[in-house]
């Protein structure tokens, strides 16, 4: 081999060696970097598992601002803030619709109008503020603003009582009552809405459900404290104090039942009353309000003294299979979630259909699609029945309105009006309830079937004053006459 050839061969060998070592070096770098990255994530995960809790601020019974609580409980606070997010489900959820702000209503986003979706509601509520504006609900974060700016504020004068549930009410009630919750409640109820509004600062906050020292669940809304006491008294338990006598699992529903209930305002003091003195079923609630001769308004087309049912989620849930199985509101609407290794309640309170894995699959080990389909089947059937019941009610209202125009006497129309009052309350009860039947499917169907039956019997009663309907409590027609005399 000549010298130059040997040099060339040596160079070629060296080039080969360089590229092999370079490849190995690159591989080594990638492996080292990857392993280090893995090590770092393992360290991080081990840190998470230590369950850190840092008390950085002291909370007292007057700490209302949730941002302050959020310093100690950042995960819960972050989730709570997400109730601003608007995500719809097939029936409900929280849907955002853009709107042009006006002088009386500066909102640029609102939920969909239920009145536009089903104009028959305006016939049911003729003469009442709900016929002016009624929308899908939005998240907790909007409770105060949506109440301040609803068209119902322009259509009628609302009392301070409304703020019992549309705000963080605990600290303001204590302040107004000089430390006495009940006195504050009684003082602010009869004020006009706008004057009472000045006492309140926040939508629902941590302190409305939690004891600031122990974080234990605590009921703070006066009407629930009184309502549940009346309910327990009807079951033979005297002097029931919800905050000392309820179990932990009961409290996981009771804190929600502080507001998600049927209610009415009693007398000129506008005291908020939860009508549970005879039980939690729709019939017990209606019987309670009947006994109080409660009239929300006189129907503009028929002259019937009628009632508005309000979002009875707590009562409807209590009639269903989940309640019977000991499942609380929070189990599905605030399911457990992991933040690192911490197990916390999701404070982004929302429809379980938006989080089926955590909300349903903890107990129901079936695919998400299957579970969603089951819920929607119940809701579609309930919606169809509700529509039929609405047709029946609209039929009765039409017949009654014609009879009124023809000048038929109050005595002749008393039975039909009593039937309208009852049919309308039952229909509204399911319509206003937030689950479209899911909380108690069979009970919702029973209520709607009953409502339909009463409406159709009402149509017969308009035609034949001698007709004796079934399903109307004795004295109901007489009570309607008394109510009409009262309100005129």
């Amino acid at each position: 081999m000549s010298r130059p050839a040997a040099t060339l061969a040596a160079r070629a060998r060296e080039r080969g060696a360089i590229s092999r070592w370079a490849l190995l070096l690159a591989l080594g770098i990638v492996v080292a970097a990857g392993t280090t990255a893995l090590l770092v994530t393992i360290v991080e995960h081990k840190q998470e598992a230590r369950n850190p809790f840092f008390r950085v601020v002291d909370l007292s019974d007057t700490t209302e601002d949730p941002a302050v609580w959020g310093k100690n409980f950042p995960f819960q606070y972050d989730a709570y803030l997400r109730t601003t997010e608007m995500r719809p489900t097939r029936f409900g959820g929280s849907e955002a619709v853009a709107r042009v702000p006006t002088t009386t209503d500066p909102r640029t986003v609102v939920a969909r109008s239920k009145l536009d979706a089903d104009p028959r509601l305006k016939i049911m509520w003729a003469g009442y503020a709900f016929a002016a504006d009624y929308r899908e609900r939005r998240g907790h974060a909007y409770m105060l603003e949506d109440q301040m700016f609803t068209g119902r504020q322009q259509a009628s004068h609302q009392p301070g009582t409304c703020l019992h549930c549309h705000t963080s009410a605990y600290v303001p009630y204590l302040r107004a009552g000089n430390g006495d919750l009940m006195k504050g409640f009684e003082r602010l109820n009869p004020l006009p809405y706008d004057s009472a509004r000045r006492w309140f600062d926040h939508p629902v906050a941590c302190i409305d459900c939690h004891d600031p020292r122990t974080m234990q669940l605590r009921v703070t809304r006066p009407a629930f404290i009184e309502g549940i006491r009346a309910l327990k008294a009807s079951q033979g338990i005297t002097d029931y104090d919800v905050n000392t006598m309820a179990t932990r699992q009961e409290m996981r529903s009771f804190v929600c039942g502080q507001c998600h209930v049927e209610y009415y305002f009693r007398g000129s003091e506008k005291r908020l009353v939860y009508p549970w003195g005879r039980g939690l079923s729709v019939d017990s609630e209606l019987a309670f309000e009947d006994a109080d001769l409660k009239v929300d308004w006189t129907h503009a087309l028929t002259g019937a003294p009628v009632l508005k049912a309000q979002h009875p989620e707590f009562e409807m849930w209590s009639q269903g299979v989940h309640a019977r199985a000991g499942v609380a509101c929070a189990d599905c609407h605030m399911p457990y979630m992991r933040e690192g290794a911490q197990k916390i309640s999701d404070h982004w309170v929302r429809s379980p259909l938006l989080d089926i894995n955590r909300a349903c699959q903890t107990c129901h080990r079936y695919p998400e699609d299957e579970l969603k389909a089951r819920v929607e089947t119940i809701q579609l059937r309930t919606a169809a029945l509700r529509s039929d019941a609405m047709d029946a009610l609209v039929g009765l209202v039409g017949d009654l309105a014609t009879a009124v125009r023809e000048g038929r006497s109050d005595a002749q129309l008393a039975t039909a009006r009593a039937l309208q009052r009852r049919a309308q309350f039952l229909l509204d009860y399911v319509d206003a309830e937030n689950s479209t039947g899911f909380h108690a499917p069979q009970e919702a169907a029973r209520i709607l079937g009953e409502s339909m039956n009463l409406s159709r019997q009402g149509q017969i009663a308009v035609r034949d004053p001698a007709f004796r309907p079934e399903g109307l409590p004795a004295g109901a027609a007489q009570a309607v006459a008394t109510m009409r005399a009262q309100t005129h």
Partner: protein
Amino acid sequence: MRPLPRAGLLAAAAVVVAGVALGVGAFTFVYARGYSYLGHDAKACDNCHVMNEQYAGWMRGSHRSAAQCADCHMPSNPVGKYAVKAWDGFWHSYYFTAGTYPDNIRISKLGERVVEGQCRACHGQIVQNIAAHAGREGDISCIRCHWTVGHL
């Protein structure tokens, strides 16, 4: 002193980096208790907190004194056992590191087959009369009804 040839420099660097990679790898293996996965103790399955609830459920379940996690979730034969350990172990590590897994985890198809087989590995003699009645849809599932025996 003669300067090192370029190939020699690269070789030295590659050796050092390989050493670092090996060292970090070994440290990670020990730090993350990698060796525990070769054994049979149920504690290994709770090394990372994803399995906290299953582990706690097993402690309260009826099988805690009769079976470790691996007794139901790995085949009994050593080849199958380590093959499933390697396969499941890789995917568990992958999803845990990436963080893309739901809070309520559900068993995989393979995992379900293994568990059903392991039910029969111990209880086969007792259940053979029941299994004999399996219809056209195939084997009767034990855990469809007895889903709480392993962990609540």
